[in-house]
């Protein structure tokens, strides 16, 4: 039974076990990493409109509009078990209808090797800032935070919220749609 093929098979199986072990130890070596970093966020321009969202309900809803500045150096987060960061900017606020609203306004995929030192000015959002109702106009307390989801080669998928946030308020008047 001890032929060329059985030996090859045994070698392959053993190699796979060793590879699994190495991967596991690689995961262990980065398991305690907190992946924390600081982000500086600022809003440049804030408007709110009241228009129908044709992709959802037909009634008029509040649509926020903003431009933002963002600085965050995420380069130190990368290690040999972090193949990608999914970075996203979240707006969080309370509205008459909902105790908690979270809306992702902007996101970016940063793979290892790409520049992760973010320094952006006057950025537009990637996604529409639709409220679930009419809770944006005059809302005094909308908080922007930057978070990231660390995607490893193998291991835990952790989501970390960066320290540093920016709170702003929406104007008390709707911007006339036609005026825009």
């Amino acid at each position, binding site marked *: 039974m001890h032929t*060329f093929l059985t030996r090859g098979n045994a070698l392959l199986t053993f190699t796979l076990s060793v590879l699994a072990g190495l991967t596991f130890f*690689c995961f262990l070596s980065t398991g305690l990493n907190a992946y924390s970093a600081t982000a500086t966020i600022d809003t440049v321009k804030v408007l709110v409109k009241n228009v129908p969202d044709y992709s959802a309900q037909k009634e008029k809803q509040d649509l926020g509009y903003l431009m933002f500045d963002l600085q965050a150096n995420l380069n130190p987060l990368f290690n040999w078990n972090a193949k990608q960061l999914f970075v996203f900017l979240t707006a969080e606020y309370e509205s008459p209808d909902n105790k908690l609203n979270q809306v992702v306004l902007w996101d970016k995929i940063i793979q290892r090797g790409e520049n992760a030192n973010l320094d952006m000015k006057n950025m537009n959002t990637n996604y529409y800032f639709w409220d679930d109702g009419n809770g944006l106009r005059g809302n005094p307390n909308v908080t922007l935070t930057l978070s990231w989801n660390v995607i490893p080669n193998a291991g835990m998928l952790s989501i970390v919220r960066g320290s540093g946030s920016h709170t702003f308020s929406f104007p008390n008047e709707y911007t006339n749609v036609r005026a825009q």
Partner: protein
Amino acid sequence: MVLNIATHMDYEGQHLAEKLSHIIVVVFGVIGWIIGYVNQQFSQTIMVLGVGVLIAAIVTLPPWPMYRRKPLSWRKPRKEVTTDVSKPEKEVVVSASKPKKKNK
């Protein structure tokens, strides 16, 4: 085709080959892990491991002479190939004492 080539190892050779392959793969794995950790590149770990597997394959898969040093000393085939004739003679002697059992 491959199977026609003599791939036989003796028992001690088999044991040695298996041990050697394990040692080579583990050693390269550990070295690769350390290199990967220092350079923070897991791909390097995998590459070093791959080199180790290749070496282990070269060293332990073919039946090199070092694995064939202690062949089993099989008993020599008996000279009297035509024992068919001699056997019944002996049987006759035994069967004289216990004929029924042997005849079954």
